[in-house]
């Protein structure tokens, strides 16, 4: 069993209106928020025969559903689930 922590974030250069609005709100609370970038984190627990197969599966998850290559980058960490 494996556990993947997948982070999907906006590619550099793409506007992040959610991040900008969050930064503005944090500033109103008197925090120094110069910039906020918003990303999504998915924790997926799944079965795979090997670490390599697990990586292939996570790549597929990102490409086929979790990220849109037009605007998203993705990264992940895979660990064996005990």
């Amino acid at each position: 069993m494996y556990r993947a922590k997948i982070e999907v974030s906006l590619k550099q250069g793409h506007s992040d209106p959610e991040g900008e609005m969050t930064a503005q709100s944090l500033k109103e609370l008197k925090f120094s928020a110069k910039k906020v970038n918003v990303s999504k984190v998915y924790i997926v627990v799944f079965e795979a025969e090997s670490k390599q197969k697990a990586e292939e599966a996570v790549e597929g998850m990102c490409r086929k559903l979790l990220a849109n290559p037009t605007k998203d980058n993705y990264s992940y960490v895979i660990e064996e689930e005990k």
Partner: protein
Amino acid sequence: MKTQDVRVLVMRVGGTNCDAETQRAFTELGAQAQVLHFNEVIKNHSILDYNALVFPGGFSYGDYVRAGAIWATGTLTKLRKDLKEFVEQERPILGICNGFQVLVEAGLLPAFNGISEYPKATLATNIPIGYRCKWVYLKHENSGNCIFTKNIPKNKVMHIPVAHGEGRFLFAKENEKRYLQKLYDNDQLVFRYCTKDGDYPNGEFPVNPNGAFHDIAGICNPQGTVFGLMPHPERAFYGWQLPDWAKTEQAPTFGDGKLVFESMIDYLKKRF
């Protein structure tokens, strides 16, 4: 084919909320239109039993992951073969608002070289951020390729409402120029946001309600048979749906949205 023989399938899933108005637009014009849940279609029907397919507006599957992404994945997984055949036979597919998001996520639009394996565009979070429900003006840009707007003169300014939080049409930065050129070369550009007089806002809010690249509101595939748009033609179908109809001495019977449904039916009548 006669109008009364035209069979339109309006699909819905949890979160779809514009299926009834869309169905009514088609039935008002004399066609047959059936609303069916996606799971019901998979289980007991075939999309190939219909002449046209519609992905209506709403918030399919709660807009989880990205607007339209889950329904697009389900559609490709469960209907890929039939969908490919549907497109190849040049039967019309319409995606309105969330339906447009589904078509883009599924690679059915812009589909420069057929249905793409991964999305070539996206409908990102509005700029300024927020759900925007308002009447906008659209300029018809198409030169006759799009079967959904054949009855609309080029450069006609239309009044139709939008209602969305994720409608900012984008290409990847590195592809912007190339893909825009393809839209023009293939006559795939259908609607752009504009002022009442037809001037382009160049991304400026509020005329462009979401910050869409090149003020794009709707595009079709190179064959002109798959069409997606963020504005809601079904909400501008009748004259009494228009925002100012009560102030006029005689409200028009129909609004600009009717032309989209009418064009599609006319295409089917001539083609099949």
